């Protein structure tokens, strides 16, 4: 995965789009254009306490003059979003990386989106593009209430009739089977809490959707309370050197200790910064970023491990 430039951007506008969601418009203090991006892309935001968090770009991908992100304040979270809410306001400086895209639009005759809450951010950019292209799409948006549905006015303005809202406050509950059977040329995108992702994926598989046409983005690590890490050995293909990874340490940490500099960011298996290739060995994949097909040869050393031994393309 590639290294990305970090820019000190100016917060041009900051407003609460819901009581918990801060919407920011970021511009470069010197340059009229920011690095280009495609719908579905995210940026890393470096917070004052050194934390790095990923936020999807929700603005117009054809407008290079600004990036827009929306940050939900997660009071029970790891503190990143709280820090952002407390320190970022109009005129302040945000340390932001160039964008990366792990959730791109696919070739499709029809695009179906299932969105929960703050998961709306990448989808907003995606439907902006699809709408501009006159493409066929539909959005199901689940939120607690109108009041707590982030960026709902923007989504309505773009989608019109193509948007269905499912607000708990109205007693409207989204049944994942609403997505229907997969038609030829359909692609399904799910973005939101892990619970929603799992429910929609299960329903989709039941309805005959092939795995390759279901695209999900979780900005939350896959949690597996029952996972017991075990030690293993990692061999570097370039030098033949073998490193021992104890049970209580990550492969990424051990690589770093041995002077193998790896880019990294979330260290939760969601951002893809540290992903590298591997040649042989049985890898225990624990990330949420590498696709099923790429798991044959790619590994996220921040969270994933191996049974007994693995050879890395490093």
């Amino acid at each position, binding site marked *: 995965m*590639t*290294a*990305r*430039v*970090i*820019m*000190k951007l100016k917060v041009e506008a900051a407003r609460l789009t819901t009581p918990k969601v801060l919407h920011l418009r970021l511009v470069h203090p010197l340059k009229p254009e920011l*690095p280009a991006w495609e719908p579905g892309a995210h940026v890393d935001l*470096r*917070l*004052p*306490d*050194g934390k790095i968090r990923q936020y999807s770009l929700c603005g117009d991908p054809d407008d290079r003059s600004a990036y827009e992100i929306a940050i939900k304040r997660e009071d029970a979270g790891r503190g990143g979003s709280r820090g952002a809410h*407390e*320190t970022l306001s109009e*005129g*302040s*400086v945000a*340390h932001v*990386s*160039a964008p990366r895209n792990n959730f791109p639009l696919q070739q499709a005759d029809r695009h179906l989106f299932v969105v929960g809450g703050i998961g709306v951010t990448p989808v907003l950019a995606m439907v902006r593009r699809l709408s501009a292209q006159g493409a066929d799409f539909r959005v199901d948006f689940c939120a607690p209430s109108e009041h707590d549905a982030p960026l709902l006015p923007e989504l309505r303005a773009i989608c019109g009739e193509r948007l269905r809202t499912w607000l708990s406050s109205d007693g409207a509950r989204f049944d994942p089977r609403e997505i229907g059977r997969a038609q030829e040329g359909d692609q399904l995108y799910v973005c939101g809490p892990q619970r929603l992702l799992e429910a929609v994926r299960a329903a989709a598989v039941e309805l005959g959707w092939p795995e390759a046409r279901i695209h999900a983005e979780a900005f939350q690590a896959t949690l597996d309370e029952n996972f017991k890490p075990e030690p293993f050995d990692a061999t570097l293909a370039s030098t033949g050197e073998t490193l021992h990874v104890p049970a209580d340490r990550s492969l990424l940490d051990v690589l770093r200790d041995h*002077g193998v*500099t790896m880019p990294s960011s979330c260290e939760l298996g969601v951002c893809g910064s540290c992903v590298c290739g591997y040649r042989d060995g049985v890898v225990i994949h624990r990330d949420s970023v590498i696709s099923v097909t790429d798991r044959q040869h790619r590994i996220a050393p921040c969270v994933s491990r191996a049974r007994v031994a693995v050879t890395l393309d490093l």
Partner: protein
Amino acid sequence: MRADEAESQILSETPSKPRPTMVEAYENPAGSIARHVPGGATGFRGVLLHIHVAPAASYEMEELAEAECVAGRGIVGDRYFEGTGTYSPKPDTREVTLIEQEALDALARNDPPLQGGGITLAPGDHRRNLTVRGVPLNHLVGRRFRVGEVILRGGRLNFPCKYLEELLGSPVYLPLYNRSGLNCGIERGGVIRPGDEIELLDDASA
């Protein structure tokens, strides 16, 4: 917290990296040999065009109107002065890096034609500290030269890295090969500014 406070806090709390381990230019494996081999261009009069620093690894370079150079350490405010550079943990000569404007001009006109077209690097995108014109950098390994009031020693030729290619998203590795600039140590510190004159000095201690 004010924005600038938040900012300095971010930079100071960038994951702790070891202090920079600078290799003195003439102790560099390249510089130590080149120093005793005569030859190279003399009598040139070059000029300093731009000064750039980056506060930490991967951060965009920022242009300075003047910069303080500290002997044995680097340019105040730069990631290799702070020890927060991508390669800071690796002992090497990188107090100051320089690149020729002429090399950037050649890249822009795709000369030699290694790519589909020219590559225009905006000032600072090359991530070297000093952009100079009229200075034959490849001749200055093992030599002393003056930039304004500051004296630099050429330690080794700079080498393009894949990291730069990734950072820029542009295939600059091959076209920069052998004209990627010069890594220097600072013999005498001081303040430099764009427009400063650059000239070769005698090797006083040879």
